């Protein structure tokens, strides 16, 4: 069954029939995780780097921000039996407007924040497709861990 991960949202699953999909990643970032041993998958679609912007919104919508959304995604996957050592992490999004001055650099800051969080926690990114000005769609097959990325009308396996 297909489950849509909306913006500022995350979902995890251990049902091999499930697909987690997130549409229209612009400057937002999609984080897909999968544990090949217990076959648990998860996906996060966060919109902004730091919860300090609005602690109140972060409390109610942890998936809105990188620094609250990423821990929430991993915790939910651990609850389903996934383990940090086994989890494979893939990332997409972080697009930018056509911008000579770098004023509207939410996409870039979203990505930098993610790298910082992963670095602090000793997590490596297995594969990624970030930047540019395209809209991206990510789809994770929970049963096989196959992650596809659709952008510019083409689909690739990430």
């Amino acid at each position, binding site marked *: *069954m*297909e*489950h*849509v991960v*909306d*913006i*500022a*949202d*995350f*979902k*995890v*699953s*251990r*049902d091999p*029939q*499930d697909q987690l999909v997130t*549409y*229209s*990643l*612009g*400057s*937002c970032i999609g984080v897909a995780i999968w544990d090949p041993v217990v076959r648990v998958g998860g996906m996060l679609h966060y*919109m*902004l780097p730091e919860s300090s*912007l*609005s602690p109140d*919104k972060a409390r*109610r*919508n*942890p*998936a*809105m921000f990188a620094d609250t959304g990423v821990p*929430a995604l991993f915790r*939910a996957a651990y*609850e*389903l039996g996934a383990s940090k050592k086994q989890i494979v992490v893939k990332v997409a999004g972080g*697009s*930018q*407007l*056509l*911008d000579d*001055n770098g*004023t*509207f*650099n*939410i*996409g870039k800051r979203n990505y930098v924040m993610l790298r910082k969080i992963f670095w602090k926690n000793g997590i490596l990114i297995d594969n990624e497709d970030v930047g540019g*000005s*395209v*809209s991206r769609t990510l789809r994770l097959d*929970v049963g096989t861990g196959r992650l596809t990325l659709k952008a*510019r*009308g083409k689909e690739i396996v990430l």
Partner: protein
Amino acid sequence: MSTAIRDILQRVGSLPPLPDTAIRLMNVINDPRSTVDEIVEVIRYDQAVTAEVLKLCNSAYFGMTRTITSLSEAMVCLGTVKVLQLVMSVHTSALLSKAQIGYGLAPGMLWRHSVAVALAASATAQRINLGNVSLAFTAGLLHDIGKVVLNEYVAEEFLEIVRRVREEKLAFVEAEQAVLGYSHEEIGGRIADVWKLPQPIIQSIRHHHDPTRLVPPDPFVDTVYLANCICLLLGIGLGEDGLYSRASDAVMQRNGLKESDLENIGAQMLLDLRKVEQIFEGQSNRSTRPTPGPGVEHTHDS
């Protein structure tokens, strides 16, 4: 003049117009001397829309303890701004809900984008003390109206438009202009002219991708431009034109806005958009979020 261009211009004239009451309402909103009674008078003229708006006001979402039976009552209970938002959303939803294949927008996506820009525009207007929040909402709602006409021409020339974007580093709207002779901004502006919409709305439709061309600058147009940037960045109703739109430092600076202001407006817009969708979901099948099934053990989505 090429056949395509003549065709496009003919389509502008033959687009089903917005209801007369919607246009009169915009003119009333545009006039700072208008009273709430005058606004109610204009809305009430369209009985179908009034009935639908009252139904929305009585939806479970608002949790009213008693049934709202008149527009004046709705204005008191929910506030004029909110009622006007509902009325304008009802007026435009049929026109904006269809798929726009040329832009890669599935049914409902253009409407979702338009409502998001409308919400972000009213928040931005509030942030820079622009005054007329309801007019900013309406301008946001209609900013992409040109796409409804240009859609099929974009579909025909899509590969060429995308080639120009990629090879010549053009914004998508600039490539439309280069390949088709018209952009969705210009076509939207012409539609707004034909409909005789208030001048600030026409201007913001016509320049919502590049307000820096306007001399002197128009803070109302800036507002719709920034709202559109926020929604493109956040991917709300994002199509094949993606983020191929120009960011402008100057527009931020001349309105005294920082990046954190945009982030705040964006975060609040998303929460407001969910509320609007909840209100409308109760009435139709425009749901964008399927309910989670048994396989999903944990979901966070408030």
